[in-house]
């Protein structure tokens, strides 16, 4: 099997203009605009070739993302963007794979895929815009809706315990888990950049306000609205006495403890670890297998199999 080669010449530098596509269809004031800006910014800072960036999504307001980014993209079906992206990532090491979606797409209908994508540590970056509500279908309860939140499907207030995204992601085995806020552009860009650089299944959970159906949901984490944005202080390893109390991103138990702090909690990298990706393990399997029949063409390999069936 010959591998895909990219015959393109040196790409142009990525600019916001080159990366902008359709006018976005989100409501004025939607938190997702800021996420889009942060994503442009992250790409502009990157050295990625334009044609090697892929943006993929499932269904939901935030899953419209691929239309608003001028890169190769696919707008798939509800909840299945992670396996679609896994196919792209596993067969094309030359690509930078980004998945976008919301809380319903990721934690509800696509919950099982998130679990297994994380467990297998597939090399991709997943950006989840969490607004605590189903927006595209106009205000039904989402898996992250707080208890008591009134929706069309829970008119007297949500009664089920919401998902704790960070705990879910860490326990599933995601190897990079960060949390940020659509009101904090530079923090978002930083989290996206670290996620994009991470080898493995990296997730950035972003609180992104739905101004239409859940306005004010993140005010308590928005300084200009009187809230507090508490960033995680990571261990620096500088031997200082205060370093003792800083967060060790490789400590899984500490990540759970941080994730359990009362809402709005902390923002930053909760967990980060280096484990072999499925991409690497599969590549290794191919190398080990092919080493057993060096120099054989595909036809010779199949012919040998047929010879054994005679």
């Amino acid at each position, binding site marked *: 099997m*010959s591998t895909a080669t990219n015959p393109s010449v040196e790409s142009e530098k990525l600019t916001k203009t080159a990366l902008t*596509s*359709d006018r976005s269809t989100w409501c004025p004031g939607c938190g997702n605009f800021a996420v889009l800006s942060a994503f442009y910014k992250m790409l502009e800072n990157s050295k990625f070739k*334009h044609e090697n960036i892929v943006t993929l999504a499932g269904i939901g307001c935030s899953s419209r993302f691929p239309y608003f980014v001028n890169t190769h993209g696919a*707008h798939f079906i509800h909840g*299945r963007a992670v396996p679609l992206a896994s196919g792209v990532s596993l067969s094309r090491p030359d690509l930078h794979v980004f998945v976008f979606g919301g809380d319903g797409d990721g934690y509800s209908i696509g919950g099982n895929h998130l679990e297994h994508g994380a467990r297998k540590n597939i090399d991709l970056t997943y950006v989840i815009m969490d607004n605590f509500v189903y927006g595209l279908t106009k205000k039904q309860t989402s898996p992250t809706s707080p208890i008591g939140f009134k929706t069309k499907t829970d008119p007297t207030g949500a009664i089920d315990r919401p998902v704790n995204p960070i705990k879910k992601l860490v326990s599933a085995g995601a190897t990079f888990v960060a949390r940020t806020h659509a009101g904090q552009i530079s923090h978002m860009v930083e989290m996206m950049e670290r996620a994009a650089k991470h080898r493995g299944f990296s997730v950035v959970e972003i609180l992104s306000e739905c101004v239409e159906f859940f306005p004010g949901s993140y005010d308590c984490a928005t300084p200009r609205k009187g809230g507090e944005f508490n960033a995680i202080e990571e261990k620096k390893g500088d031997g200082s006495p205060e370093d003792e109390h800083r967060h060790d991103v490789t400590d899984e138990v500490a990540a759970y403890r941080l994730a359990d702090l009362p809402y709005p909690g902390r923002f930053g990298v909760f967990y980060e670890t280096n484990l072999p990706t499925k991409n690497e393990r599969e590549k290794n399997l191919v190398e080990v297998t*092919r080493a057993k029949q060096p120099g054989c063409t595909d036809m010779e390999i199949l012919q040998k199999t047929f010879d054994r*069936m005679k």
Partner: protein
Amino acid sequence: MTATESNTQPNPAHASAGRADLRPQHIRDAVIRIAGNSQDGIQAVGGFLARLAGRSAQDVITYMTIPSTISGGPSIFQVRIGSGEVLSAGDEADFLVAFYQHSYKDHIGFLKEGGVLLYDSDHVEPDLNDKRFVYAGVPITGLTVEALGGTAKDKGKNIFILGLLAAIFHLDIEKIKRLIRERFRTKDESVAETALLALQTGFAYPIDNLLSTRYRFEPVEKPDARPQVTMDGNQAVAYGMIAAGVRYGAAYPITPWSSVMEILRAELPKYGGLFVQCEDELAAVALALGFSYAGHLALTGSSGPGISLKTEAIGWASMAEIPLVIVNVQRGGPSTGLPTHVEQGDLYQSIFGGHGDSPRVVLAAASVEDCFYMSIEAVRIARKYSTPVFLLTDASLSTRIEAFDEPDLKAIMRDLTPDLAPRPAEFKPYPLDAITQHAPPGTRMIGGKYPVATGLEHNEMGHPTGSAKLHAAMTAKRRSKLQKLADELPSPEVFGDAEGETLLVGWGSTYGPIREAVDRTRRGGQQLSALHLRHVHPLPHGLEKIFARFKDIVVVELNDEGVYGYGQLASILRARYCESKIRSLCKTDGMSFLVKEILQGIAK
């Protein structure tokens, strides 16, 4: 057993009373049914016989039933070996091997009059007063245990029987030994040695004391024939996909599909590829679409319930025009249904199983050999028309072992490396006036506009549109691809006379029994012809002209006659051709058609 003309032998039905002639009887065809329990290794015996026949240039077809329980339960393996063309596993057995009393009771009705019952006299007490059969009781269990010196659950009985059969049919014992050594070459040496000992013990048994006749297959002379390969239908699908250039796939285990993915998981890394076992069917089809979207045409597959789960994503493939091959190894439905039995109940689902107008191509493999070639055809069509393609096989094809001419790999093998050459400024991912050719990621777009593959109705650039006019135009675009495909399909050939009384129409694994029914009646002077569809949707052109030349058209298929009295293909053909003389011959007993069932069905 069909005796050759030169050799008329006494009917062995009366041989049980005493010994008769020991001259070998030359035969062209024999049906051997081996009945035991699923852990007895009777599949292995059947497999060795099939491989041996394939290696001797004889035609062979096998039939196997397995219980859906994990271990235990009655099981059979049936082998039909012929010196001519073998089309079905046979309506009745010439030879029944019974391991247990239940094997005898359940299958003696399948033994033809004058046939031989070979039974384990340690376990079976047949009714010797029934003078229809020849009885040969051998203490198989006792002798095997004695020979192998162990009591390990009577293991080795199957190979003992293989030795007995080798003696009875004058099979090439040296070739069998080679097959056994090859089969166990990866195991400890003692395994092969034990098997060879069991074989030799069975072969040396003084069978002539029990049987007055031993048999010999007529040698086959095919001067320029290619050597034969022997495999089952699922293997043929897996290797067909590899030959066609498929290097990526994803699936979830389900009976009887699983062995395709097991083979590909082990084989594809040899070719630099990858097959992924997913968390569920939804992920499997999505992952396969991810491979295809990335430029590597991919395979997913399943059986009935799993295909139901994949349905939404297949609709996306239709809409986004991403090529994909979906194999459905059909089993009895609906719901969990009959997991280990055959049915052709998923034709409607394949053609229509999606919301909205979601065109897809549907192909059906007729035999094990055809599983190989239709896999290649499925890949060709998926690529050329950038569309999802279903390949239908079924439970009977999946486990059936056949021998067929070794494929000419030089002429067949394809390299499907993605085309990432830069696309010109005028490139449109969904052009209204041409067939979509997907530009995978990594492809530089000279015009600077990058395409989005989407399930939303879209314009020519792949961006969403609510325009009713565009939706109508795009719906027509997706449909017209299938019409273009139909234009290039060859009109299927009629087997038998081109005009006449009755035309049998079939699809999928009914091919063999239908052909044999035609052969049998034509020898009797009756006018029966047959037409077999491998491209089921879209249909090839010219069928109406063929139908016009027959008085009666009977569509033979393994599904229910439905509320209106017609099976699934029959209903589609009636709707398509407004031809009232099309009628149905259906059955839903979970087993392949017997030739006599077809002949009786037409007579009605």
